[in-house]
């Protein structure tokens, strides 16, 4: 069941790999090599914490559900789980990152305008 779903994501066009980490940023499952996994998990964990606290500070009843980072070379998609309680290792964070060509920031503004 679980691996089935992960496989479906992996088989999407342009997906390079999937990393699943727990709430503390410790990788649980990964489809890429170890050094990359550790790097992504470590860097992304702090970033998600920051992003989540930003969203919650703006509106305490709000929460972060999804995060997309478009870079020049690829795109990192992050789907965080439920808000982590202090000791629980359960709620994991999923980081699929896919290869997509970047677009300039101007276009992103345009996108938000279109919306």
């Amino acid at each position, binding site marked *: *069941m*679980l691996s089935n*779903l*992960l496989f*479906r*994501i992996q088989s*999407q*066009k*342009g*997906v390079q790999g999937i990393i*699943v980490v*727990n709430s*503390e*940023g*410790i*990788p*649980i*499952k990964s489809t890429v090599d170890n050094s990359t996994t*550790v790097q992504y*998990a*470590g860097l992304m964990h702090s970033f998600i914490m920051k992003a989540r606290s930003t969203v919650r500070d703006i*509106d*305490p*009843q709000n929460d972060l*559900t*999804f995060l*997309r980072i*478009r870079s020049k070379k690829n*795109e990192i*998609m992050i*789907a965080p*789980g*439920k808000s982590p309680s202090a000791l629980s*290792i*359960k*709620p*994991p964070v*999923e980081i*699929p990152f*896919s290869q*997509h060509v970047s*677009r*300039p920031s*101007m*276009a*992103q503004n*345009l*996108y938000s305008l*279109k919306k």
Partner: protein
Amino acid sequence: MLDSPKSSKSSALSAKDSVKKLKIKEETKAKGSAKGKRKQLGKKDEEVDISMASMGHPEIFPLVFTGKTQEILNCRINEDITEEKPYKLLKKEDIIQDMKTRAAVSDFHPVKKIVLEYPGEELLIVLDSEFKYGQNFYLVATEEAKESFLNPPEAEEEEADTKEGTTEEYVYKPPVRKPWVSLGSEKEIEEESVNESLRKIKYMISRVRREFGSKVKFTDRNASSVKDGYIECTSYQDKNFIIKKLEKDVGAQVIPKVKEMSTQTKWTYPRNAATQYFPREFSDEEKELCLSSEDLKEFIISVFLRVEIALQQNEIMNAFFDDWKALAEDESTFGGKSDAYLKEYQSFTDLHYLKHRTVSCVCWHPTIYGIIAVSVTERLSYEERIAQSGKLLLRKSPILFWSFSDPIHPQLMLECPEDVYCFEFCPSDPNIIAGGCMNGQVVLWDISEYEEKLQNAKTGAGGSKNTAVNMPTFIQAQQSGKEPHFVRYCAVSSIEYGHKTVITDIHWLPDYFEVNRMGIAFENRIGVCVQLITCSPDCSILFWDLRAPKPTIQSSFEKAKEEKAIEAPPDVPTTFKHLDLSWRPLIKANLSKSDTSGDYSPTKISLAEEHFHYRMQDKMQYQIKPEIFGDENPYKQLRVPSAKALKILENIPTNFFVGTEDGEVIYSDWKMERESDSGRLISQKPANKYTIHDGVVRTIQRSPFFKDIILSVGGWNFAIWKEGVTSGPILQSCCSSKRYTVGHWSLSRAGVFFIGREDGNIDIWDLLEKTHEPSQTQNISISMITCIKPWIVSSKQHFLAISDNFGTLHILEISWTLSHPSSNERASVDHYFEREVKHLDYFEKRQEFRAKERRELELETQRKKTRVAGGQKSREQMEEQLNINYADFLDEEKKILTGLGLLKATDRFA
């Protein structure tokens, strides 16, 4: 201490008195004993001399204490007696003892009497370190003086002094700090001070995070419905505030400001430390545990959809497509007209060399930036030329080399045997220049000696000083005089075998092939350009080979000539000495007319394979090739290789376009054919001939983008041709009001070309913008434009060299819109040409169709005419008419029958 001698002054009076008494005593003694009177007198004199009465201190007697005396009396200087404590009390008995033991040697001898008469028990000896009284010690002779020395009466004197001082000026006395004495006030203060006695109450209030900032809901409620739902707080007077304040106990004390400060530098002990961290990782079991947990499953399921949608979004609709960028691309093509014009960059003219002369040809130096060569000819008509032929022999028109750094003085001048009408830099060595003369001779120059000079000229006029240092002396001399150097040509072709009239066009064959006497292309092993093609209105196209012919062919006459050539002036480069005056063309191709006898007279030629060196090339390219030959110039060692060894190149097209004096454009092949009967080599008949232009064809040029597209300019119009399309030009302009004199394709935009006109204007055509008229016209000069040559220095700088009939060379900068193609200009131009070809085909077909129609129509009208003219129909005509009618009837009948199915279609054919 220093005061002590001063203070002694005060006691001087009393001391004097005592001395007087002493003297009186002495005198009375002397009177008493007359016996030793004389002796005593002498002694007395001595004593008086010793005392310091003259200095006001009669009680002081200077003494010399030798080291021995000092030792005996325990008054050694700096040990027992110091400057700070210069006093020493000596017992009278000790001194007397000393005098007794040492008698006259004793230091006390001069003051023996004083010592003996001294009333006290002890005598005061004072150290006179400053030699105030002439010796190192002095003796105080009276008891009073001794007392005053030992206890100086300073206090009294000082007080007197201060008393005097206060009357005159006030002296500030800082307050003296005294120890504080407790009088019981501290107890009072202690009583007054407030101390905290109660313990502080601490409260901690917390709230759930999600309730922070959350909206609060207020609702209405009846106060009476619930018990204690309403509490009233009525106001009342507080008795605490009624008491009147009658007395206030206030205490004040002045205390000096106290400030506590401290500094301390902490010394941290430097230590080597290292931290290493490693990522936290789960073991396999832990991972397995996590993966199998229900939470993770839940999470994955909840998150899966979101991820999938996000991933697919990029594919379904690209929201990040930059519409603005796509917009900008279109905008640039509609660029404003203002910046589309050519901007004047520089112009060159020379009053001396260009007087009454016109520019015939312009060429950019292929490698050196800012160097452009210009050939000039006399601006004369044919008749004038004949009239002045004698004079013209003395005035040779040179080829001038201009540099951007110096607009007044030409950098170099090439001497020409005759007026040169066309020239070209050799593509494989820019120091070799081939030119075509007015009398039909081909000239070769070698400017490799001056390459450095041209290079330096490029760096700017300011650099001339530096260049002079490296230059040979003769150039230096010329530079100082600002007189450009004349470079002699190093070879001219033989007059007998060359062209009969002016050479109007010259081209180097590319370096990858060469042709033999049959006109067949072979591979070129050396990789340098060795062959030239020239054309002239004397109905011939000649091929020339730079290499020395095989020695066996040379006749004795030519040998003699060659020997003569060796005696040429020493400053002429010997690169082509083997060719000088004996150079013969390799092939002579004629363009014979197909219908009548006679030949076409070509003026311009365009080969299929051409060098396009319009761009600043990397110099390295040129430097590589000479290395193959060592240090020497490759052109000095060229030999014709044996023809057998060479490979025939089949794919080299040998076709060419030629423009003639009469305005025809001819398509032909230079391959020679053997005449069937005589076996002589003759050139092929031209494949196609078109008469489009109304005057001399001035330009025939291939597009630098499409090898099969040719631009021809002549008379009052221009045409664009496509190789392989035989029906005619794919584009032909209408006649303009002024004659076109020259044309050139743009080097960077496929659909743009420049055309120079008789009235000094430049027409810029952009085929993508419009084809019926030039997209813009710009005036450059007041006289006829004679030559146009574009040049790309860099992607940002494109130049256009335009020369006019008055000998002025204009360098114009091509604007951005004219030099930079739009995104797919090449493709759209290609598409345009294709469309034109189709249009031409259609046109041709229509023309045929129309011609047929017209013929029929004519026949009809003729028929009608005859009918009308005849009035009455003749018998035959009547019969013919009947026959036709009957045939029509039969046809009609057959149709109806087949339509009704009564007659089978097969039957008809049967």
